[in-house]
């Protein structure tokens, strides 16, 4: 027994000295802690913000969206639009290369775009599933060595921003790879080149030579740390430089440490409660009530959104006035104030007085759990606010991915449902495109308001920015007064940042490490 104990002690003595200077990053390396791994590194198959944040460091785009919401040159130095506004021609910068040394020309850009819609490859990511249908992509063609044209089926005022979401790569390298190989061996065109992917553990990149985009750190490591408290521990220990999705209940612990702080920003994700306008819910008591714009407007006054943000999200917020982010929102509309007396008055006027039990009508609010910041408690709070004004609300909170998402996608969630929708800072039409048509995928409320949808015809048929902006404002007023959303907040984002580095957060959930630097 003594020999055993001695042996164990020797082994530990040999092993333990190797432990713990291992983990602090060197000065030329920036380490990000992420909650989930990517499901692949195929540039045409990106479908989550986390993966997009990784990919934007490996792949260039024709233009890129700055954190101020401007569209700035990236791989392309300029662009022009045809007279019918269906063709965008980009002029590439000279001397671009991919990470394998292959020159990046217009032919490669055209190949990138055409590959996305290759039926044999059957991509379903953001490009194939959102960008290309939105711009009604027809084809991409190389007009010269450095000029490439993207052809659309119809004019689109947000085309440039959408096209800027497509990650560009070279033709030769991707032609040689199968789809499975491409998903694990990316050859990019951006600031960082791929080194290795230890699945479930980390993705390692190093600075690419001759990239069009500059970056300060030589090495960039994305570490996968699913558990929020573990991510926080790694940040406080100084083993990672920045963590995304810092948990609100750990903000104080991070700020109290001497090694890191939390940077909060009001994001662009629009959080709302949808009022289902479909016939299937119109036959129910609550569903019938919310068909009336007066009832929906009354409910706007019933919820103290600022209190929800301050107490449940640990971040102050300003209530949304519509579905467009504040920097592009209607210039004069003010957020609905919290005023339950007005809510009750309007409900009385709408024909829904309290009965003998104090109830006006009953309704169900459905929500998924675990997707958004403190979602369950936010939903419970909303249910209570509605109860307080006599709307007896049943909160039905279900598993996000296996139960709620299919309901939402089939447009069956309701009569009220809690949801968030990603937005942007660069164009109000991008935010409004959730409700571009009655049949739009994200029109989960099945809203059919004519005054709203006729506005799209005006916008799509005009090239005059003044006319377009005037119509946008008119539509936003319609949405404010009669819209199918209980307007809530823009979800705040919490980033834990080590005191070792300086890094600027963005509102739109995008993570840029290009300009990050050491703090001293």
């Amino acid at each position, binding site marked *: *027994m003594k020999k*055993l104990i001695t042996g164990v002690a020797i082994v530990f003595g*040999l*092993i*333990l000295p*190797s*432990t*713990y200077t*291992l*983990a602090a990053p060197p000065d030329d390396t920036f380490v990000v802690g992420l909650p*989930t791994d990517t*499901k*692949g590194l195929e540039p045409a*198959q990106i*479908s989550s913000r986390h993966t997009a944040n990784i990919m934007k460091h490996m792949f260039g785009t024709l233009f890129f969206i700055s954190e101020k919401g401007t569209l700035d040159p990236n791989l392309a130095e300029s662009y022009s639009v045809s007279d019918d506004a269906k063709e965008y021609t980009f002029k590439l910068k000279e001397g671009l290369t991919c990470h394998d040394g292959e020159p990046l020309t217009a032919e490669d850009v055209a190949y990138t775009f055409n590959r996305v819609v290759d039926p044999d490859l059957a991509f*379903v*990511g*953001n490009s*194939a*599933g*959102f960008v290309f*249908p*939105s711009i009604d992509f027809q084809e991409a063609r190389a007009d010269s060595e450095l000029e490439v044209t993207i052809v659309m089926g119809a004019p689109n005022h947000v085309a440039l921003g959408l096209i800027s979401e497509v990650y560009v790569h070279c033709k030769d390298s991707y032609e040689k790879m199968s*789809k*499975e190989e491409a*998903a694990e061996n990316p050859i990019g065109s951006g600031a960082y080149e791929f080194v290795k992917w*230890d*699945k*479930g*553990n*980390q993705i390692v990149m190093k600075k690419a030579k001759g990239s069009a985009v500059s970056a300060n750190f030589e090495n960039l490591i994305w*570490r*996968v*740390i*699913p*558990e929020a*408290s*573990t991510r926080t*521990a*790694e940040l*406080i*220990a100084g*083993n990672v430089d920045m963590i995304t999705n810092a948990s609100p209940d750990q903000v104080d612990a991070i700020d109290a440490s001497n090694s890191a702080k939390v940077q909060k920003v009001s994001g662009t994700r629009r959080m709302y409660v949808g009022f289902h306008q479909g016939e299937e819910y119109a036959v129910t008591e609550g569903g019938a009530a919310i068909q009336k714009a007066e009832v929906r407007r009354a409910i706007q006054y019933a919820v103290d959104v600022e209190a929800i943000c301050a107490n449940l999200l640990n971040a102050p917020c300003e209530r949304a006035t519509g579905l467009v982010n504040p920097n592009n929102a209607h210039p004069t509309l003010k957020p609905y104030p919290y005023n339950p007396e007005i809510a009750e008055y309007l409900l009385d006027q709408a024909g829904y007085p309290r009965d003998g039990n104090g109830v006006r009508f009953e309704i169900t609010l459905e929500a998924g759990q675990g997707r958004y910041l403190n979602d369950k408690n936010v939903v419970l709070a909303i249910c209570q606010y509605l109860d307080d004004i006599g709307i007896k609300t049943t909160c039905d909170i279900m*598993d996000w*991915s*296996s*139960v709620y*998402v*299919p309901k939402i*996608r*089939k447009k069956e969630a309701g009569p009220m449902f809690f949801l968030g929708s990603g937005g942007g800072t660069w164009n109000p039409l991008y935010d409004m495109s959730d409700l571009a048509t009655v049949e*739009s*995928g*994200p029109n989960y409320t099945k809203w059919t308001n004519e005054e709203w949808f006729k506005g799209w015809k005006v916008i799509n048929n005009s090239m005059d920015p003044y006319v377009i902006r005037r119509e946008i404002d008119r539509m936003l007023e319609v949405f404010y007064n009669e819209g199918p959303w209980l307007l809530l907040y823009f979800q705040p984002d919490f980033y834990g940042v080590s005191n070792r580095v300086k890094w600027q957060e963005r509102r739109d959930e995008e993570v840029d490490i290009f300009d990050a630097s050491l703090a001293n």
Partner: protein
Amino acid sequence: MLVYILRRLPQTILVILGVTLITFIALQIGGDPTYLFVSERASPEEIIATRIKLGFDKPLYVQYLTYLKNLLLFDFGDSLYFRQPAMKVIFETLPATIELTIFSMLIAVFGSIPFGVYAAINRGKWLDGTLMAIAMLGQSVPNFWLGIMCILYISLNISWLPISGHVPFLMPIFQGDFMQGIKNFPTTVTYLLLPSFAVAFYSLSRNARLVRSSMLEVLSQDYVRTARAKGLTEYTVIMRHAMRNAWLPVVTIIGLEFGFMISGVVVVEVVFAWPGLGRTVFDAIAHRDIPLVQASVVVIALFVIIINLITDLIYAKLDPRIKL
């Protein structure tokens, strides 16, 4: 022995069938998962086409029988989430789980021996009471809580061990780079210590109590009294004569414990960011990645069956009274 192994084969097949059926039913309870695999703006036609492509349009019994048919051909299907063969995803993460499980088993089994033996030898004294109180604690605390506490106090406060992460030992060896695996071994162990302890503590505590009670029973036997009367040292009496019989219940439990540990490993892998199969299955369930979950469950079931078989063979070796 070969006959015994062959006799276990029908049992194995039945277990695999049962496991796949239960898993299949459990995964289908959530309904049609097609919507998770199409983009948000997919048209109704695209959704229908995807449903047909993934086979979710067929009746459930057809889906299950098709799965079984493919299983006979060792075709476990493609992961819907990763869009790669399910077995490829599993083999990429299985080595990490094997490392964690084996290390945890070693801690649970060999850690319990001194624990239980010392408690038995010092029965009724403060050492016995203290060790059994620790054992009780070990069977009470959830492993994920223990993991988080270990991170907080051992890793963060005193920086003695890593907080999370993994350096592979088995994977380089499986890929043919033996020297790299050996080179990584010391670092792998440092990353393994805390998660293994979190997984193993429950089993260690239970085994310790088992060793204690088994040892107490054995120490009261006549042959032990005879050994002492012959003048043998207490160490020899315990280690050479008593231990061999006291061990038998623990060996029996090892096979069962392996299956229990696999379930504990799932949560601990998430807490410690350990890139193993447990975490992969956890995420696959959330993503409704039915082929990956089913393939993982079959692989895990096979492991449990093999470990139980080995346990039975070892037990027969240790106890000559047992005939296979």
